Every structure is written in structure tokens, then in C-alpha cells.
């Protein structure tokens, strides 16, 4: 276990190092400059700006500086937003994104699990088909399409909820729903297949033979064991939430990281793009690592060191 953990952490560090390096060099090849109204600046002014941001030094020196700063947790300063430190900007914006992500995850898991359980318990009835159909819809419909449809009908036409703002719980309902459809679909599909498999195993037959009711068997014995593998879908869920957050935050005008990232792409703000990329990469790789380790702890049947490689 310890050996496996160390190995995984080393991979994580290598991955992050590669991402940071690739990000840095790609940004250097990017056409256009990061300064606004560049054509109005004289050559001297440009010189001063370049010096100020260390852009006049040779690229290897810039690279070394950048790497050292990242390790210190300093991601540079924004070119566009009044020299604000990127770390600072990220911290300011992480709140709404996390809040939405968390709500979507909780809602998605609960609704998805319920759909999956019902589908498995009433296999091959209309309940099963209905829930499977919902799951396919959730998996297929892009979150931005769903978000825009919600916004149009519930926000603009019915005026039940604020169209696009960020103040209080009411304004977070629609973005949460839009983000939750993928988790719902994934959890439902997964739960259904798992539960069907568990329900046909020997110990369930034994539990039934002992005279327990169907409800009791399902709740006490089957669902518990079927829940375990669900941990593995947390990784893909996190990825989808991140992708979704970029468009959903843009659609609903939420001051989160995703919205900031899209904005910085459109304005060529290198430090923010680099910083957000590394932040996202860090978040995702850590989540996937934690999920893998959790899985090993929760389910003793999985042997991490031996089972992971074959």
C-alpha cells in the first residue's frame, strides 16, 4: 500500500511538471501579445512593460523562474486585471465553482442512485425503461444545451428563477440542475448494472431463503455492496463537472473559475490561462488519486499494488 502510494504520488508530480512545462512553452508560442492597446504603445513603453513582467529575459530563465514560483505557490500576476496575483484571483473565484460543483455532485448522486436502484429492482418494467431512457438523455445532452433550455423556459418565459445572476440560493438552482444531469445519468447507469449483478449473487439468495422480504434484502444487503464500485465514477464525474462549469458559469454569469478561464482565453491573459490550467490539472489528478486509494480502502477485494497492474 505504502509503496503504491509513493509510486502514485511520484507519477502525479511528473504529470503536473509536464503539464506546467507544456503550458509554459505553448504560451510562449502563442500569437499576439498580452497587453491591451499594444499598437498605441511606443517601443520604449513596450520595453518597460516587458522588463516589468520579466518577458525580456531569455526563455530558459523565464522558465526556471516560473517553475520556482509555482513550487512556492505563486502563479504570477494577471496582465489584464490590474496586476492582481493569479493565485489571489483563483482563490476569490473558487467559492462559487466549488459550491455549484458540490451541489451538483450531491444532487446528481442522490437522484442517480435512486433511479438506478428502482431500475434494478423493477428490472424490465416501465420503471426500468424510463430510468434507462433518462440516463441516456442525461449522458447525451450537452450541459450547455440543457442550461440554455432551462434558462429560456424557466428563467425567461416563466420567470420563476433569476435568469443569470449570482446572489443566494435561488440563482444557483438552474446551474446546479444543468451540471447535475451528467452525474445523475452516470450514477443511475452504474447503480443499475451493479445492483442487478449483486442481486443475482449467492448471498442474496441466502438472505431471501432466510425469509427476509424483498425490500429488506435490497436495502440491507444488496444496495450496500452495490454502492462500493460507485466510487470509481467520481473521477469522470469531476472531469465532467469541470468541463460543464466553464460553459454553465458563462451562461448563468457566475463569477467562478470556469468563467474566468474562458474570459482569459478570449483576452490572451497568459498568466491566468497557465495558472488556471495548472490548478485544474492539480485538482483533477489529486481527485483521481484519492478516488483510487479510497476504492482500495473501501473494497478489500481490490488489492491496489497487485491488482492495479497485470
Amino acid at each position: 500500500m505504502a509503496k503504491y502510494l509513493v509510486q502514485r504520488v511520484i507519477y502525479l508530480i511528473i504529470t503536473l511538471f509536464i503539464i506546467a512545462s507544456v503550458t509554459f512553452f505553448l504560451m510562449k508560442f502563442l500569437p499576439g501579445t498580452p497587453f491591451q492597446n499594444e499598437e498605441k504603445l511606443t517601443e520604449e513603453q513596450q520595453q518597460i512593460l516587458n522588463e516589468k513582467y520579466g518577458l525580456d529575459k531569455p526563455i530558459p530563465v523565464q522558465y526556471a523562474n516560473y517553475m520556482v514560483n509555482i513550487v512556492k505557490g505563486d502563479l504570477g500576476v494577471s496582465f489584464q486585471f490590474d496586476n492582481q496575483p493569479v493565485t489571489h484571483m483563483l482563490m476569490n473565484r473558487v467559492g462559487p465553482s466549488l459550491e455549484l460543483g458540490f451541489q451538483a455532485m450531491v444532487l446528481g448522486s442522490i437522484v442517480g442512485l435512486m433511479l438506478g436502484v428502482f431500475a434494478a429492482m423493477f428490472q424490465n418494467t416501465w420503471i426500468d425503461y424510463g430510468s434507462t431512457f433518462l440516463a441516456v438523455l442525461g449522458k447525451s445532452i450537452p450541459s450547455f444545451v440543457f442550461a440554455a433550455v432551462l434558462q429560456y423556459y424557466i428563467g425567461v418565459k416563466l420567470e420563476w428563477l433569476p435568469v443569470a445572476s449570482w446572489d443566494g440560493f435561488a440563482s444557483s438552482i438552474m446551474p446546479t440542475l444543468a451540471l447535475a444531469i451528467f452525474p445523475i445519468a452516470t450514477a443511475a447507469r452504474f447503480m443499475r448494472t451493479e445492483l442487478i449483478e449483486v442481486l443475482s449473487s449467492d448471498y442474496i439468495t441466502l438472505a431471501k431463503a432466510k425469509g427476509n422480504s424483498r425490500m429488506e434484502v435490497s436495502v440491507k444487503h444488496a444496495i450496500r455492496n452495490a454502492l462500493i464500485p460507485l466510487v470509481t465514477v467520481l473521477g469522470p464525474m469531476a472531469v465532467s463537472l469541470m468541463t460543464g462549469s466553464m460553459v454553465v458559469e458563462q451562461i448563468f454569469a457566475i463569477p467562478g473559475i470556469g468563467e474566468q478561464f474562458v474570459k482569459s482565453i478570449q483576452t490572451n491573459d497568459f498568466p491566468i490561462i497557465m495558472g488556471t490550467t495548472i490548478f485544474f490539472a492539480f485538482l483533477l489528478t489529486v481527485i483521481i488519486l484519492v478516488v483510487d486509494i479510497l476504492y482500495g480502502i473501501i473494497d478489500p477485494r481490490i488489492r491496489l499494488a497487485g491488482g492495479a497492474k497485470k
Partner: protein
Amino acid sequence: MSNSTSEKIPKELFEPASTDNMDNELIAKPQLSFMKDAWLRVRKNKGAIISAVILLLVIIMAAIGPHISHYDAYAQDVTKSNLPPKIPGLEKLGIFDGKQEIGGVETDVYKQQNVKEYYWFGTDSLGRDLFSRVWLGTRVSLYIALLAALIDMVIGVGYGLISGFKGGRVDNVMQRILEIISGIPNLIVVILMLLILKPGIISITIAMVITGWVGMARVVRGQVLKLKDQEYILASRTLGAKNSRLLLKHLLPNLSGVIIINTMFTIPSAIFFEAFLSFIGIGLQAPRASLGTLIEDGYQTFQFLPHLMFIPCIVICIILIACNLIGDGLRDAFDPKMRD
């Protein structure tokens, strides 16, 4: 019980058993090939078959659609801008009649702007026919998805075959490389690549392929590891088959199931990715149209002209749902054990 049933069966139905046992091993039914067997099972999955038909219709429309409406997808005509959909025949039913609510009043925009023609899906702000543009966009989206899926398949299968078949140190090194690449979130790679490459069909495809092949490589390697120690490979090797023959003649056909399933799931995710990139503004550039750019354009004015956004949205959802259902059907057919 047994007496009564035996009485009911007429004597003529009984045939004398053959006296020699020579043809005991004879296979009475024609042998089912792998593909035939899969087809027999897919056929039972109604959802997959209906989806395949719908997808086929969409593909046909993508091919001929831009030519049936007689309006060029790029021709701009400001006198005919922002028209709602109007379809002859359906207009009498009160839908698609070219009417639109403006400031709470239902107005016939076609009469107002003095337009005699029918625009089946309406027009955009530059007066371009949405019907032509939607099918043209579908064409571009499908093209990008197919291209990305094909390249993913070639790279992934090649990498997986070599890694799994060679084994040992080669496999070890290749797996470490794979682990590092798969650790990088693909969304980030795609966005970064698109920032330096000029947005276009080829660059979007390349950006998606860079990380897209990893999944295929993993699945193929896993299957090769499982298959390469089986007896039929050993038999073939004993008979003097070269590695290339083992790979192409024996392993590849047995991998075709997982390869097809994986590719079938790559296509919808590529379509989604293209639309996503266009939506955040780094996809195809105007005047080129893809489903993603149409949705993005439509979104700008969707509060007043919802049809500009909803029609491409419906098309993309139909494609994605159909692809996923076909993928599910194929997966169940090729390998009932390999669900989720």
C-alpha cells in the same frame, strides 16, 4: 405422464438412428461468424436499430440537405433577416407559420418584411438560410468526429497491440508514457492546442486526437494480454507463424469487438467536444458553420429568436442520443459481460 405424451406423437416422426457413429461430429447448422453472431444480437435491440435508422437519415440530410432548400448557406440577404421558421403545409396547423411574438403581439414576420419565400428553419441575423446552414454544420461536425475517431482508432490500436504483444521492457516504458499522458486532463490539452493552432477542422481534430487515443490503447492492450497466451496463438506459433501474421490474422479479428465499441463511443464525445469548443469561442471561425458555432450564434439572440438556437440543439442531441444508443447496443451484442 410419460405414457400420455408418447402416445400423442405419431410414429412417422421417429427416424431410425444411424448405425455408425461417423457423423457424430458433423455440425448441422452453418457456422456463425463473429460478425453474424453480433448482428443477430444487435437486431433484437430495438433502440439501437431505430437509432441507426435515425442516424442514417441525419447523415443523408447532411449530405443532401444543403442542396434541397435552394438557398445558399453563405448567401447573405439583410432584407430577409431573422425570419422564424415557415413550412408549407404545416403553416395551416398553426405551427411553423412564420409568426412570432414581438413585444407580446403575434406578428407575421414574413408579411411584415414582405417575403414570399418559405424558409423552413427560418433565417439568421444576416439573412442566411438556417436549413442549409444546419445540415452544412452537421456535415462539418460529423466529419470532425469521424476523422478524430478514425485517427484515435489507428493510433490507439497500434500502440495497444505493440505494447501488449511485445511485453517486457517495451510494455513497461509504453505504459509509463501512457499513464502520464492519461493523467493530463484532455480538456486542458485541447484548449491549449487550439490556442496555438489556427482554429479549423484539422486543428480541432488534431487537438482532440492528442489525448483521445489513450482509452483505445488501454483497452486493446488489456485484450491482447488476455488473448496472446491462449492456445490458438500458441498453435499458430508452433506452426511457424510470424509475429505480423499472429497480430493481423489472429489477434486483430478477435479485437474487432472492443475496437468497434470504443470507436462508437468516441464519435459522440468528439461531436460534443467540437460543439463545446465552439461554444466557448475557440472552435471553428465564421463564416464556417458547425453545429457548435450555430448553437453559439443562436445563443447570442435566443431570448428573442429561440429557433436559431433550438434547431441546431435538437439536431446535435438527436445525433448524440442515437450514437450512444447504438454504442450501448453494440456493446451488449459483442460482449454481454462488458457493461459499464
